[in-house]
């Protein structure tokens, strides 16, 4: 689709500002009512989904041009999808997140990208990662684990570490633990090591679509060659790419997040806990595992009207509204760990507050990114948690960095970390 | 004959114009400390056309007008002219009940309709008005509502001005005007035929015109009819008396009732006031005062047209439980008073003599708005000041009335005194002034600023005063309406 294809939606936006808040039914307090970090931080209405519809329409109609402010509006957005969920509480014929992503892609196409993003994308082209690191160092996180190397071997399951877990020294343990858990549970699992490349998800959300397509082509080829039928990853960004974007370009592999797999293994008694982890924790739903982690449903169709002026789609169009994301498996895992007490924040599941790391914001707008993460840290502390636990290394990195400046001692873990402590 | 008098006679008829010394004397003073001032003439218009002509004439001739609707006695100085040569416009002849609409529970009344006249007529239709505490039988209902006298049942006051709804009035500039939903193209009869009923007060459009004449002491215009919201006449009506040694003890319980909107009549009286209300024999008021508990919370529970017994029964049980949780008792009788007699008293206008005058022949009221939780503090302040002035604390009447569903509270002190004793009168004057100043300092909001309260209240709020004067300049540009009241000081000669 092109931006013009969203013009009808821009004109059909309710102008209600529900995109600013979490679903109103779910609001429990004044403090934690907001859903969109972008408008909460930047304040101008332009920074909400509603505002971006209006900005996009203004550009399309030739009423305004690209300015620094326009770029600021377009890029100071985590593409977390909170707006999409809230909008779709009532609207069945708007796709605000898709329109926001399309707007971004349009800017990139028109050479209106950010220098901070260009640096990353240039590096991606050369070294196939988003961490500004050499590709040759990618597989080092798995040294000593004795995991199948799918560059030369085959396996049913590939564990895809992702860029962050491959290179972030503090977080690599999560990848090590995850793949070891799979291995020890008897799963036929392998890794691509230094042949693993970026999934392309973060580039996509920055507006670089062809980079995702290229990544998909590379990885799908590698998986096919390795006989892979299931992809498991501990990164929510990668999860979303594999689950929702890759099928658009022909992928047919089963996609699971590590927490889904572990949840399965626990319920099958293939993982047994022997130690207690006495800790009060709260779980942060990563955007791309939660509301953007819904199953993919292929669709190609057209808009039509019924009852004279009701907008529907033929055939029936899938509705991604966050309802069917991955919410319960990580919670079930945490609840099953002896000693762990799970408390919930106010904004959870499909209406969770973003970690702040997504869509190139961490790289281009570190203050905004840190602010978003700090909001979440405060929410976790407010819930009475000693630790915030997530299932995405980008979330965890952002929380670790924000918590360090807060000084209130909130710990940050991955679900897998606590599982390994209990085994 | 004076040509001005001639013109007035032509406007409203000879029989409606009075300037005999006795009549003028009667309007020259009231029970307040307002400086006596004789009006020039008293007129009795009978319809809105006559009122309009009078106002237009007053504008042409720069003649001050003082509207009066209620019969005597008057207490707050608002009906005593503040300037010379005023015309008192007495609306008591405009005393028609224009309509009682049972289905919509609305009554349309002229300003001369008094409580003694209205309540029995409403009762015939199964209705009643939410009335203030023992108004005079000849008290104008419209005037009482315009003055924002607090009604007994706070749960019926969604709007602060409830039950007052729409008005027809003549503004000080001579314009006849209707407010609220009454602004419609047709006559009243035509609107009623269309099923309209003058129910909604706001407006029309972007101005709440009716608020501009409320508590205005006749300084903005003259109301010629009003629609008022009525309540169902209870089929069963029980009253409960909750005695207490101190007002503090019943505050939390009262708040609970207000929050749940349980009970109907809800007011706190001290023994002195309840005795004055109940005791017909003046000499026995002190005796009854001694018998009664110091404070009495009065709670009414009404059963209306739907399942009345059940309503009264469940509320009685719930309120009793709530009272017990607060260490209080719901009683049908207390030493000196039975609930039934109190109920009868408060549901009816005052007998003659007016209940507040019974004890000593005269009295001064100090009343203001505050919040319920602050009232015990004000009681302490009033007592301390009374003591300092040598006024017997036991004689102070206290009436505390939650208003606007509990958002605010009317706090009233009644100071009976013998006006035939100059020394006592002087002491009361000093006490009244001093107490008003101290209470204001401690947070009393004189929202109905009669007499000396006007300067006190308006000096405290310069911006409101400025805007109010602008409003006055719009609706009464020639300042003919009761000059000298509120912040509208007459220009120097």
């Amino acid at each position: 689709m092109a931006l013009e294809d969203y013009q009808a939606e821009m004109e059909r936006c309710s102008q209600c500002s529900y995109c600013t808040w979490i679903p109103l039914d779910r609001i429990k307090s004044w403090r934690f009512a907001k859903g969109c970090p972008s408008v909460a931080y930047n304040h101008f209405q332009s920074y909400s989904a509603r505002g971006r519809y209006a900005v996009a329409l203004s550009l399309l109609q030739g009423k305004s041009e690209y300015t620094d402010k326009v770029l600021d509006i377009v890029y100071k957005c985590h593409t977390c999808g909170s707006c999409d969920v809230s909008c779709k509480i009532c609207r069945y014929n708007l796709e605000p997140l898709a329109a926001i992503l399309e707007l971004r892609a349009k800017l990139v196409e028109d050479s209106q990208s950010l220098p901070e993003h260009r640096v990353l994308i240039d590096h991606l082209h050369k070294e196939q990662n988003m961490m500004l690191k050499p590709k040759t160092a990618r597989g080092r996180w798995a040294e000593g684990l004795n995991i199948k190397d799918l560059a030369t071997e085959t396996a049913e399951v590939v564990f895809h570490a992702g860029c962050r877990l491959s290179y972030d020294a503090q977080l690599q343990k999560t990848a090590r633990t995850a793949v070891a858990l799979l291995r020890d549970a008897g799963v036929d699992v392998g890794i691509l090591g230094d042949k693993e490349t970026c999934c392309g998800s973060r580039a996509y959300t920055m507006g670089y679509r062809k980079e995702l397509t290229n990544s998909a082509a590379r990885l799908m080829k590698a998986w096919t060659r390795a006989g892979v039928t299931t992809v498991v990853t501990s990164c929510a960004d990668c999860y979303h790419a594999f689950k929702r974007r890759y099928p658009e370009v022909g992928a047919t592999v089963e996609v699971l997040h590590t927490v889904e797999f572990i949840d399965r293994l626990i319920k099958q008694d293939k993982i047994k806990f022997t130690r207690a982890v006495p800790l009060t924790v709260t779980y942060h739903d990563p955007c791309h595992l939660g509301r953007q982690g819904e199953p993919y449903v292929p669709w190609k169709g057209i808009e039509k009207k019924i009852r004279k002026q009701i907008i529907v789609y033929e055939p029936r169009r899938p509705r991604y509204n966050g309802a069917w994301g991955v919410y319960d498996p990580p919670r079930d895992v945490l609840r099953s760990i002896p000693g762990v007490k799970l408390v919930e924040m106010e904004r959870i599941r499909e209406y969770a507050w973003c970690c702040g790391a997504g869509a190139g914001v961490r790289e281009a707008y570190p203050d905004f990114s840190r602010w978003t993460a700090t909001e979440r840290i405060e929410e976790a502390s407010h819930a009475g948690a000693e630790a915030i636990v997530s299932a995405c290394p980008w979330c965890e990195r952002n929380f670790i960095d924000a918590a360090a400046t807060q000084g209130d001692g909130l710990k940050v873990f991955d679900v897998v970390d606590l599982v390994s402590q209990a085994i | 004959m004076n040509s001005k008098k001639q013109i007035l006679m032509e406007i409203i008829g000879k029989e409606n114009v009075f300037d005999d010394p006795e009549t003028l004397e009667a309007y020259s003073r009231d029970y307040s400390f307002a400086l006596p001032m004789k009006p020039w003439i008293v007129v009795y218009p009978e319809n809105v056309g006559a009122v309009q002509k009078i106002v237009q004439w007053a504008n042409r001739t720069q003649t001050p007008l003082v509207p009066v609707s209620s019969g005597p006695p008057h207490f707050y100085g608002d009906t005593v002219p503040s300037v010379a040569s005023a015309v008192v416009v007495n609306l008591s002849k405009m005393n028609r009940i224009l309509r009682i609409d049972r289905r919509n529970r609305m009554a349309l009344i002229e300003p001369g309709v008094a409580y003694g006249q209205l309540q029995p007529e409403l009762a015939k239709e199964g209705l009643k008005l939410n009335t203030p505490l023992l108004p005079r039988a000849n008290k104008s209902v419209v005037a009482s509502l315009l003055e924002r006298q607090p009604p007994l049942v706070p749960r019926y006051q969604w709007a602060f001005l409830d039950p007052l709804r729409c008005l027809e009035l003549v503004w000080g500039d001579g314009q006849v005007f209707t407010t609220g939903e009454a602004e419609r193209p047709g006559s009243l009869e035509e609107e009623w035929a269309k099923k309209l009923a003058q129910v909604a007060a706001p407006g029309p459009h972007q101005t709440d015109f009716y608020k501009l004449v409320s508590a205005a002491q006749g300084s903005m215009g003259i109301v010629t009819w009003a629609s008022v919201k009525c309540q169902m006449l209870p089929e069963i009506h029980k009253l409960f008396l909750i005695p207490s040694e101190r007002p503090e003890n019943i505050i939390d319980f009262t708040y609970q009732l207000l929050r749940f909107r349980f009970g109907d009549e809800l007011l706190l009286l001290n023994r002195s006031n309840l005795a004055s209300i109940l005791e017909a024999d003046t000499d026995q008021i002190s005796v009854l005062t001694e018998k009664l508990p110091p404070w009495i919370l009065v709670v009414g529970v009404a059963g209306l047209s739907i399942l009345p017994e059940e309503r009264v029964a469940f509320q009685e049980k719930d309120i009793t439980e709530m009272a017990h949780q607060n260490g209080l008792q719901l009683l049908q009788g207390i030493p000196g008073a039975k609930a039934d007699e109190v109920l009868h008293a408060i549901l009816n206008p005052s007998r003659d003599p007016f209940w507040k005058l019974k004890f000593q022949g005269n009295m001064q009221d100090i009343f203001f708005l505050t919040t319920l939780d602050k009232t015990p503090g004000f009681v302490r302040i009033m007592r301390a000041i009374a003591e300092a002035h040598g006024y017997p604390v036991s004689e102070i009447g206290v009436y505390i009335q939650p208003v606007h569903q509990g958002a605010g509270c009317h706090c009233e002190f009644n100071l009976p005194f013998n006006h035939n004793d100059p020394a006592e009168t002087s002491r009361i004057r000093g006490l009244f002034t001093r107490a008003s100043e101290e209470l204001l300092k401690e947070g009393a909001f004189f929202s109905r600023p009669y007499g000396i309260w006007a300067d006190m209240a308006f000096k405290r709020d310069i911006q409101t005063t400025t805007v109010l004067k602008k409003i006055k300049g719009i609706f009464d540009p020639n300042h003919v309406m009761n000059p000298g009241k509120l912040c509208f000081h007459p220009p120097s000669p």
Partner: protein
Amino acid sequence: MALLRDIYQALEDTVGERNISEDPAVLDSYSYPLTQTAIHMGPFYDVYTPRGKAVLMPGTPQEVQAIVRICNRYNLKLKASSTFWSAMGYPSGENTIQLDMRRMDRILEIDEKNLFAVIEPGVIGTTLQAETMKLGLNTHIIGAGSSCSPLASATSYNGAGPDCMFMGFGDENLLGLEWVMPDGEILRTGSLGSGLGWFCGEGPGPGVRGIIRGVVGAKGAMGVFTKCAIKLYPWPGPPELPVEGTAPAYKAVLPDNFKAYTLAFPTWKAWADCCYQIWDAGIGYIAHRQFSLFGRELKAAMIKILTDPTKTLYDLEELVQDPEIKKLNEEMKRDFQIVLAGMTPRDIEWQNKALDHILAETGGWKVTGMNKPEIQQWALLYLIRLGHKNLNLVYGGGYDGCFGMVGPPDLGTTHAEEVTKFKCEWENKGAIVDAGGDCMIGGIGGMGGGGGTMWENFTHFDPHDKESTEGTFDFFEACSRFAREKGIPPGMERWNAPSRGADGRETPTEKREHMLSATPQPAVFYYQRKIKEAIDPNNLGDAYYLTLKEPKK
């Protein structure tokens, strides 16, 4: 033309660089499409409100005052809005500074005993409700839903809603008010002005704030309201609304002292009789003809879609054919929704009995199909939180309302069927959604204690579609004519026509004056003109505050 640099600098110095913008794209995001829902005028295809000169986000009343003074000095117009969800909050001419009030979003105080909250303009109904519920209290929420600003509703527009019967109308709930007047002075009304707190909105003496409220409020044309106190009401429920379910089919599982029913009646007279008896009895917490917004023929199907997270609008056609759905629609033809909330177990027991008694007397009944737990729980949440008012636009993004018939129930019920038939004829023409003619939604109450009903006939259209939009405009013109012919009071569809016209700008003076002169009492607007001259001498406000020149005598 951009603002002169020294003016821009003065404004920037007031609010800070971060809180001002004149970027064209930003300004366009503060421009409102009058196609989509202009609120009681139009719709006008491909017309937008004019761009402001700049948009500012003040953080304090002092900043607001400074801005107002700058506007006075440089003859700029001013338009403030809290949530920007209707055309009233937008400029109607060039040369306007826009204020986005969202930074002033604090709940400053909740007085639990005296039952009021003090709020800033950026507070929305939901957050106020969430905070007050923690204390066993609740707030009136207007019909446009809880994403709106209670301060804005109380001061600047209508303020009616489903809970009016119990919780009063916007006007009734407004206590003290802090107001930066158009002349740059700050007025604090009632007890607040005397430094005595927020509890009383009137006095000393007359209620000065009467000059900015009325039925429809100041509509953003009389300065800026920076704080107000709002009356609160009891909430006999848990401190947090217990919401469950899969999006979007959220529901609230409340204790037994809460009940939600859909009541239906054999005749419109019985419907009206029931309203009166409910008010006479003093029962009910919320009462509204709510789900009719979807249309007589579509509402049961829409409820099915909204309560099933696997369904979408695509399922509508099939569902509408379902015999059970058809039967439910027929049963609910003359309906409204009611929520009972008992303060105590005995209270809810009595209210339930009283309601049954009233139904027996009037021949009404509780619609069983709406009593299924998942639907009742959904309805309870819907009506209490009113967080789904975006559904007004569910079909295609365009909605506006016509008729209205604001007044006692006997007025609306007299005309309900002829209005339905009239709308059906227009639905058949194709520009608006074919929903069954009766999309009439409105409060059962209208004000505290009851007394009025409203019958806003929702008209759904596609703002992207020129024919649909222009056809809707034609329909609304026809509604006005129809009402005149039938003796129905003037409808809502043109309430704001005197203020703004087809080009998105102020209605031309001559046209406006002609309209206002034809109203039953033009003197209203003569006085409003004088009020405006007195407090807005430099004409900062636009024609949403209506004025009329008095003819020379």
